[in-house]
């Protein structure tokens, strides 16, 4: 059976034979290259996917001129952005202005570490994986605030402030819904959480409380990634382009890329916590069915689940109108947070009594 795990082991052995003590260094280099490649490919694929999904939802065709069926549209766009001049406004804080896109990008890259892409393929199986994710995902707000502040533009500033308020509030809800799964699995480690779902994904095993926490999680991460209907940070009808109003060329492309990478990462986390990560769909006592499901590679399972969640979030974006700032905060503080807290209590009771399957 096709497996990334064997490849990784083979490469590890080969490196150990030929480089001796430098094996960790070379593995880091390989992983960095792979991560950058993944980012580039994901950026191209997700932007195209978004445009196609948007078009079909709005009864349009979408990009269909560049390459077969418009497949090369995003490649052409990227080439254009690479060649464009990156302007810096006259009175901008040059250092922070240049630094901000890289901070946002770095936060996205750091989040890649604890994600299990397939069976045994994980950059760093840290024992506080889920905590690490929720901690590091807050770094990107610093980058956004930096971009808004240093642009010397009132729209950028407003967008950044809104984004700050939004991410800080919605992190709570996301945290509480993640805690539900942590309570059920009894571990913060990503590999343990996946292993706990071997006989069924949490969304099936955990009854209604886990479904509620899944819904809250999806809403909260949509807000955290600044996507419609929570795209107040960009709000093109009010703030031109929000925090990246003054950015152009490759710096703008980095913001754009980071947005899509963040979507991928939060969907990957959602798939890991609720849909079993790379774990195939197993139904207890159906041995024949389970063995057929096992035959599908674990990387395909992971990518399938992640892209299903990405499609769901895109579906939200092209269906719902944008919320007002007060509505946004009402939704979080008056609805999601109390429901999330109460739900966490229910899940805890369920875990103590062992009511889940």
């Amino acid at each position, binding site marked *: 059976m096709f497996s990334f795990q064997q490849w990784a082991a083979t490469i590890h052995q080969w490196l150990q034979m030929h480089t001796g003590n430098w094996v960790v260094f070379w593995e880091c280099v390989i992983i960095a290259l792979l991560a950058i490649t993944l980012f580039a490919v994901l950026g191209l694929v997700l932007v195209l996917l978004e445009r196609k999904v948007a078009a*079909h*939802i709005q*009864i*349009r*065709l979408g990009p269909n001129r560049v390459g077969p069926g418009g497949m090369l549209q995003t490649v052409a766009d990227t080439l254009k952005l690479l060649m464009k001049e990156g302007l810096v406004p006259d009175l901008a804080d040059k250092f922070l202005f240049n630094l901000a896109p890289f901070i946002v990008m770095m936060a996205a890259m750091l989040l890649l570490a604890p994600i299990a892409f397939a069976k045994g393929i994980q950059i760093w199986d840290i024992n506080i994986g889920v905590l690490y994710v929720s901690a590091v995902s807050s770094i990107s707000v610093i980058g956004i605030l930096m971009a808004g502040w240093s642009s010397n533009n009132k729209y950028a500033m407003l967008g950044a402030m809104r984004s700050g308020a939004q991410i800080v509030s919605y992190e709570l809800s996301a945290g509480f819904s993640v805690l539900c799964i942590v309570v059920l699995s009894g571990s913060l480690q990503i590999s343990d959480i996946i292993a706990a779902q071997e006989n069924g994904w949490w969304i099936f095993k955990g009854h209604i409380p886990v479904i509620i926490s899944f819904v809250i999680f999806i809403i909260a991460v949509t807000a955290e990634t600044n996507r419609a209907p929570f795209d107040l940070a960009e709000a093109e009808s009010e703030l031109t382009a929000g925090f990246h109003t003054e950015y152009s060329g490759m710096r703008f492309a980095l913001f754009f890329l980071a947005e899509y990478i963040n979507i991928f990462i939060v969907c990957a986390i959602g798939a890991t916590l609720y849909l079993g990560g790379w774990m195939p769909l197993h139904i207890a006592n159906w041995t024949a069915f389970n063995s057929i499901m096992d035959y599908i590679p674990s990387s395909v399972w992971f990518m399938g689940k992640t892209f299903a969640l990405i499609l769901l979030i895109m*579906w*939200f974006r092209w*269906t719902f109108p944008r919320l007002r700032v007060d509505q946004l905060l009402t939704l979080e503080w008056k*609805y999601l947070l109390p429901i999330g807290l109460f739900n966490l209590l229910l899940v805890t009771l369920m875990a103590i009594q062992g009511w889940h399957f």
Partner: protein
Amino acid sequence: MFIKEYISDVYQGVRSLLKGMKKTGYYFVHPSEIITQQYPDNKDQLVLPERFRGEVVMTHDENNEHACTGCTACELACPNGTIKIITKFDVTPEGKKKKALDTFIYHLELCTMCNLCIEACPTSAIKMAQTFEHSVFNRNELTKKLNQPNSKIREGVE
């Protein structure tokens, strides 16, 4: 009571969101609903909506007769001076003088396709055509004379 309202709020909210998602989801999985026309490619089988407004034309029947009485209702209705009507006096067989249309001048370059002239016309002499490729090299070509040469008013139209 507060709790009841709160729960019904959440329920109504979720329900209306799902309703919207059902509609967009339907469009997403039914590509046959797509209304985009790939214009230069499908020039031959282009289907325009019935009420598409391209330019004002005057309808003439097979006897080269139109229904315009030269009443200038369209000229008065036009918000930006697109239409200019020049009238003349016809002499009827009984020897009476009767006002009639001489030239219907239409400035396509000024027209906003607002349809007010068509609504104002008491005899339905003019209508909106579905042509829309109006670009020309000389601006003068956009000033059009709508009544055909030697055309006259149809019998019985008052």
